[in-house]
């Protein structure tokens, strides 16, 4: 790299300063979430709590109904990831390796969706969900999120399958395998990089989505974590200890999951972003 000449430890020490500023909000939230209301008001921002008030978390969890929010978010992510894979893998395979009547034109119409911001189509989308009786349901929001993610998913799977030699597929056909068998038994097992990228990107964007839930999920029982936290934070805006601990509950699981899987996570995100 550019810097075989730059020495590791001085640079690492220098980088710790910006890193402190980047991570300061997390540290401040963690510390403050364990303080009393009084301490939050008067003590220095990064002081250690007098006593670790874990009951702040218990209170926030119960008052904010975070259990329900987490379950809703998990169901939402599972539906979106599962359905996205289930429809994009076969479609990507078909566009890459099968003769689709009008395939090229259809593919470009799908690609068009890559450039359409979700906010630009929200008015009719709301009406469609309403007409199908899917407003205020996790099924409805998941379908809308899948629909919005399909252009990327198909593009991703198609690029991957195009890289697989035709001879492999011809050989399987001679052995009497149909397209479904080829896809399930031969291609999916080798498509791990593409699937990883698709899973990471669709899971993260669904877990973090705020715009669609805001418009579609009106009643608290059906809301997902980010929306629920925002509602909670505005309802209890003066009880800082609750808002702080609720906020930590909202980001900590993903942060921990990311740290545990950071290599695959990074690979998936980078590959996905570069292909998309």
């Amino acid at each position: 790299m550019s810097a075989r000449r730059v020495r590791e430890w001085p640079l690492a020490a220098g980088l710790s300063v910006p890193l402190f500023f980047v991570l300061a909000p997390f540290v401040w939230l963690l510390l403050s979430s364990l303080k009393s209301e009084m301490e939050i008001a008067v003590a220095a921002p990064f002081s250690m709590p007098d006593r670790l008030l874990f009951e702040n978390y218990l209170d926030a969890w119960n008052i904010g109904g975070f259990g329900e929010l987490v379950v809703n978010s998990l169901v939402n992510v599972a539906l979106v990831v599962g359905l996205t894979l289930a429809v994009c893998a076969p479609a990507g395979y078909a566009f890459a390796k099968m003769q689709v009547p009008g395939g090229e034109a259809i593919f470009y119409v799908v690609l068009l969706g890559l450039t359409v911001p979700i906010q630009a189509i929200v008015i009719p989308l709301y009406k469609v969900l309403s007409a199908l009786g899917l407003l205020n349901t996790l099924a409805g929001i998941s379908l809308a999120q899948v629909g919005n993610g399909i252009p990327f998913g198909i593009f991703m799977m198609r690029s991957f399958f195009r890289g697989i030699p035709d001879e492999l597929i011809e050989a399987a056909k001679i052995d009497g395998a149909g397209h479904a068998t080829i896809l399930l038994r031969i291609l999916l097992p080798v498509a791990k990089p593409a699937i990883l990228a698709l899973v990471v990107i669709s899971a993260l964007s669904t877990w973090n989505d705020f715009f669609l839930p805001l418009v579609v999920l009106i009643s608290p029982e059906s809301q997902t974590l980010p929306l629920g936290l925002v509602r909670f934070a505005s309802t209890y805006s003066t009880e800082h200890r609750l808002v702080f601990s609720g906020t930590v509950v909202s980001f900590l699981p993903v942060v921990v999951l990311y740290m545990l899987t950071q290599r695959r996570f990074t690979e998936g995100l980078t590959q996905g972003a570069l292909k998309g």
Partner: protein
Amino acid sequence: MRTTTGTKADAVSSILFIGPALLIYGLFTLFPALDTLRLSATDATGLNSQANFVGLANFGALAADATVGRVLLQTAQWLVLHVVLAGGAGLAFAVAIASLARTHVFFRTAFFLPHVVSLAVVGVIWAKIYDPYFGLLNGALDAFGLGMLKLGWLSDPALVIFSVNVASSWQGFGIYMLLFVAGLQNIDNSLYEAAEIDGAGVWQRFRHVTIPGLREVMTFVVSLALINGLKGFATIWVMTQGGPFYRSELLTTYIVKLAFQFQEQGRAAALCVVLCALAMAITVAFNRWRESLR
């Protein structure tokens, strides 16, 4: 499209393969996109009202609306800020950590942490950071004896766009950093060696090897940052709702207000068309530019 494995039976089963995806895409993306175009030419107001065709009148009304002018200008400011702050931080940290060996993964992982947090949660966090009384920022300024720098970060109309953008860019820079890191790994090491032999210093190597080597990634990051900026919504919605006095209103937040609060669906749809056109223009322009670099 490759047709090497094509037969007639293929054509039939291919429809089964793409059918489900097309159905969901058609119902929840393509149809709404086309219907937005139709709505933009009507005077639709409520969610279930009878709408009449009005041609381009909605676009005329938007052009005459001073708030829309402000919203477009602020959206442009927002995009520039995001490219500079998030893109700039991404580049700077990528270049710095790329020259690390043993601590590379640690710094890459740590700097990326904000990006896994939902923008809505980021909004809640930074609203607290900017809180005039309990906030981290003013509290820290006090602690360092810099109390005179305390500002109403979210209440000052001249400052609010910048303040919220810092929050969004804090969350956003991680992905740009990863893309730059990937780009840096593709630069041929022998170029650096050659530059060193020619007596180039750190800055000269950066200027004449790193920057040209990153050109393609850079166009990609800038276009991604512009698109992400254009879609920016959650932080503004959570932190300011577009206020004070529309001074942090963006295209996206104004669309939601027009459509769901003011029930001005026709005009909102026209603004949606503008948003979509901007996103497409950015994508097409940057794809052309990137191809011209190859």
